[in-house]
């Protein structure tokens, strides 16, 4: 033992505390690590809190009716407001176009007289197929997956996206042959 004299009055005698310097630093590290862990955990949870589990949005996948409900050569705008898709029927089948402009994400309008989708924000124009031909839009509108459900109705799945510039309009699900 050291021959240093410890004044009796200066130490806490009734706690029986025999923590030395090393032990103290050890507990201090544990304390700080626990604090850092708790803080880190809290901030992680805080970030997680910002991502809701349930969204009060229209579903990403939905039924739009039977193939016969759609007229050949027509752009069906019934699903635009709720689901943000145009459903188009041509002689060969049906495709679902996203109503999100590929320029900056506004919503174009289908102009029946001019047979084009025209965006009010910056004037991008798209043909009925979704291919861009005027204004700043850099690429065609995206298509969503269309398929037939077991009850014969058409299902549109917006989680599937098909981009023309990647050749994805050739993929089977992007177009429902009838």
């Amino acid at each position, binding site marked *: 033992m050291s021959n240093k004299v410890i004044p009796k009055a200066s130490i806490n005698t009734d706690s029986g505390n025999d923590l030395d310097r090393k032990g103290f630093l050890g507990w201090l590290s544990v304390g700080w690590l626990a604090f850092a862990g708790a803080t880190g955990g809290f901030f992680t949870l805080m970030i997680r809190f910002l*991502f*809701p589990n349930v*969204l009060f*949005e229209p579903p990403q996948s939905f039924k739009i009716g039977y193939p016969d409900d759609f007229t050949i050569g027509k752009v069906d705008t019934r699903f635009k407001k709720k689901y943000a898709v145009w459903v188009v029927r041509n002689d060969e089948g049906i495709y679902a176009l996203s109503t999100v402009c590929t320029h900056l*994400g*506004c919503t174009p309008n289908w102009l029946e007289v001019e047979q084009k989708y025209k965006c009010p*924000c910056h004037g991008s124009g798209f043909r009925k197929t979704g291919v861009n031909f005027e204004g700043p839009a850099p690429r065609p509108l995206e298509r969503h997956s269309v398929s037939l459900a077991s009850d014969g109705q058409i299902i549109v799945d917006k989680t599937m996206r098909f981009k023309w510039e990647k050749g994805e309009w050739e993929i089977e699900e992007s177009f429902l042959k009838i």
Partner: protein
Amino acid sequence: MAEKEKKESLLSRLGESQVWKSIIRSGVPRNRRQRMYAVLGNVFLHLHPARLPKHAVKIGYTWCMGGLSFFLFVVLTITGILLMFYYRPTVEYAYTDIIDLTEQVPLGIMRELHRWGAHAMVLTVWLHMLRVFMTGSYKPPREFNWGVGVLLMTITLFLSFTGYLLPWDQLAIWAVTVGTNMARAHPFIGHEGPGASLLAIGDINLVHMGSDVRFALLGGRFVGEATLLRFYVLHCIAVPFIAMIFMAVHFWRIRKDGGISGPL
């Protein structure tokens, strides 16, 4: 004569009363030292230095742009709190509440003050930055405070951006749609950004439209009810709170870095 004596004694009795002394604490400061103590002993006055170099009050040198930015922040806080008494951040009411605020609520100018004040603050913050740059005041030892200032400028722009959505008119909705679409392209945490496709387990993308930074900002996949509420909370509580913390650091550092910079 007797009247005057009485008056003086009343005044001096007031000056010596416990109430007066507990509030004012010091008498009228008569010399430099006492004036300095009076300034240092008051929480509001001590925000200013007790003594200034002559050039610090020259409008041609500072343009007073930092001071004006802070002034506008205070104006925006006060008018903003007043607007909160009437504005409801829901899709159903937001737009009509703004119309109501402009046309029916007494002093409809309150909303215009908030709007114009916000425009002006963006302007003064930029001009403040320009002034600091042109006078070389970003140089050591003030380089840290320049960094804090850049953060404050970003915060100002974000406050402006979040406030833009709240009127919930067509301009607001589409401007914020366009603005937040930029977040899609953020590296790694935006679903269309570089590196986002690398964060995947097998075929399953971890960063997609329903989990990226834009989603966290909007509270959904598009600008809707959740976005309005989120931007409202960010605009009224979260971002001003962060701004105030950085402002405290900014003002503190001005003093600690030797006060306002000198002329070149």
